[in-house]
């Protein structure tokens, strides 16, 4: 039996800040990092606000050679990986090459890079498409570049399940450890903002067209009117607990104790949606009863129908107002493949500091949502275990249970 996988390093690139600590302090202070899009002239679009990671610059942080051959999304992942490895105190060159893997999630790939090249093609002709289009646009670019940069020759993978994919990357990291690896670079980032990228997102009909950043993204509120997108994410270093101990890892943020993924049936079948089942399976795998869970990080879709479905599942599993629920993504927007990995990072920091980060912007909770939403102010709370919920467009559901490293529960070993 392998020992439970632990998370030993966190790297964050987010609208709320660069680095885990900057992100964490902005999050605790309730600082909303949603604003009018500046990456391109957005006044013309029905959706105009987003969570941009404006402090992030590739120059000086990403190796010069990699900048022109990779998209913004990969730039952010490379810097986040640097941060996460440094945080974990890992020197990849000192570890066996085949025992380090890379599994990231992507949702839309190299959106901005791809638009630039496709514009060259259609406005000037095929000879104007550059040599790097073939390696920058596709969804596997980030995993490949991380593997090369750090000499990680173990199992490498890329999963796509829209917002649910980041949790899946952690589940897959766990499998890679079970197969004998000692360390996996996991999580994901997303950079969905180019004019065409935004146009594609607008077509899903779920985004907020509210132009006031303070009012645009209000999940569970009576005025909920859609979601706001964001860029960035988190890279997490996942290790076999025994290997981490053996190399003298100084920090263990938490244990991946349970995971489950389900898919909603097509509406025409009349069958019930499958989110509740994902939550129950993840808890069962972690060996936890609902009462053992100290906080739920909600998916917080921001549309009335999806919010209601999630609120009902939480109330059904945990009882009315039975567990604190929070959605710090109200400060960043939804980061697609980067979102749930950022939620995992935030939950681990909440565990470390025994405080729950707030949800911002919810003025009037829908009265019959029976959830205890942590609003506006952080709430002191010992966190022994946390549940992270993620839903991906089209019916993807995922749930991940984290356990504090010093917790006495044994879930997670399998």
């Amino acid at each position, binding site marked *: 039996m392998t020992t439970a996988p632990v998370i030993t390093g966190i790297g964050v690139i987010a609208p709320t800040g660069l680095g885990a600590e900057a992100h964490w302090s902005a999050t605790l202070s309730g600082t909303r990092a949603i604003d009018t899009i500046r990456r391109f002239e957005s006044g013309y679009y029905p959706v105009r606000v987003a969570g941009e990671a404006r402090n992030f610059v590739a120059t000086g942080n990403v190796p*010069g050679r990699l900048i022109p*051959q990779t998209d913004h999304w990969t730039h952010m992942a490379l810097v986040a990986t640097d941060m996460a490895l440094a945080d974990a105190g890992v020197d990849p060159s000192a570890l066996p090459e085949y025992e380090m893997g890379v599994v990231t999630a992507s949702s839309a790939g190299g959106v901005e890079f791809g638009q630039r090249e496709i514009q060259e093609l259609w406005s000037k002709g095929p000879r*104007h498409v550059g040599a790097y289009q073939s390696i920058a646009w596709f969804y596997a670019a980030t995993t490949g570049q991380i593997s090369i940069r750090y000499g990680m020759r173990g199992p490498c993978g890329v999963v796509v399940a829209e917002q649910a994919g980041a949790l899946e990357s952690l589940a897959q990291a766990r499998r890679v450890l079970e197969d004998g690896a000692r360390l996996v670079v996991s999580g994901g980032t997303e950079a969905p903002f180019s004019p065409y990228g935004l146009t594609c997102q607008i077509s899903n009909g779920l985004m907020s067209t509210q132009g006031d950043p303070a009012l645009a993204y209000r999940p569970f509120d009576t005025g909920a009117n859609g979601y706001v997108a964001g860029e960035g994410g988190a890279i997490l270093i996942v290790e076999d607990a025994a290997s981490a101990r053996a190399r003298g890892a100084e920090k263990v943020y938490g244990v991946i104790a349970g995971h489950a993924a389900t898919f909603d049936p097509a509406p025409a079948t009349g069958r019930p949606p499958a989110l509740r089942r994902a939550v129950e399976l993840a808890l069962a795998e972690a060996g936890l009863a609902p009462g053992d869970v100290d906080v739920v990080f909600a998916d917080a879709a921001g549309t009335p129908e999806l919010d209601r479905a999630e609120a009902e599942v939480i109330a059904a599993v945990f009882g009315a107002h039975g567990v604190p629920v929070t959605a710090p993504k109200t400060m960043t927007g939804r980061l697609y493949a980067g979102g749930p990995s950022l939620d995992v990072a935030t939950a681990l920091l909440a565990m470390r500091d025994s405080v729950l980060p707030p949800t911002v912007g919810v003025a009037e909770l829908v009265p019959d949502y029976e959830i205890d939403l942590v609003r506006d102010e952080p709430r002191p709370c010992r966190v022994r275990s946390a549940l992270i919920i993620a839903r991906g467009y089209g019916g993807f559901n995922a749930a991940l249970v984290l356990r504090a490293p010093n917790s006495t529960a044994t879930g997670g070993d399998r």
Partner: protein
Amino acid sequence: MKELTLDDLRSLMRLSAGEDESIDLDGDIIDTTFKDLAYDSLAVLEMASRLERDWGVIVPDEVAATLETPRAVLDYVNERAAVN
């Protein structure tokens, strides 16, 4: 058509492949091989493609492989430009 200078080539190289922190493109690079400048096959292809787009000089596949230094590129492009 105007002549391609080493400085033009430097800026084209920066656009094509960025700048490796350990290599000074502003230094004396004219006879340094692209390999020693840490240019991989994709970077050389990207540079050839930019020469074609921005300078109108088509570099055939078999020729591209023989242009190993900035001097070779300048000579090739400027000879062709002189004929045009």
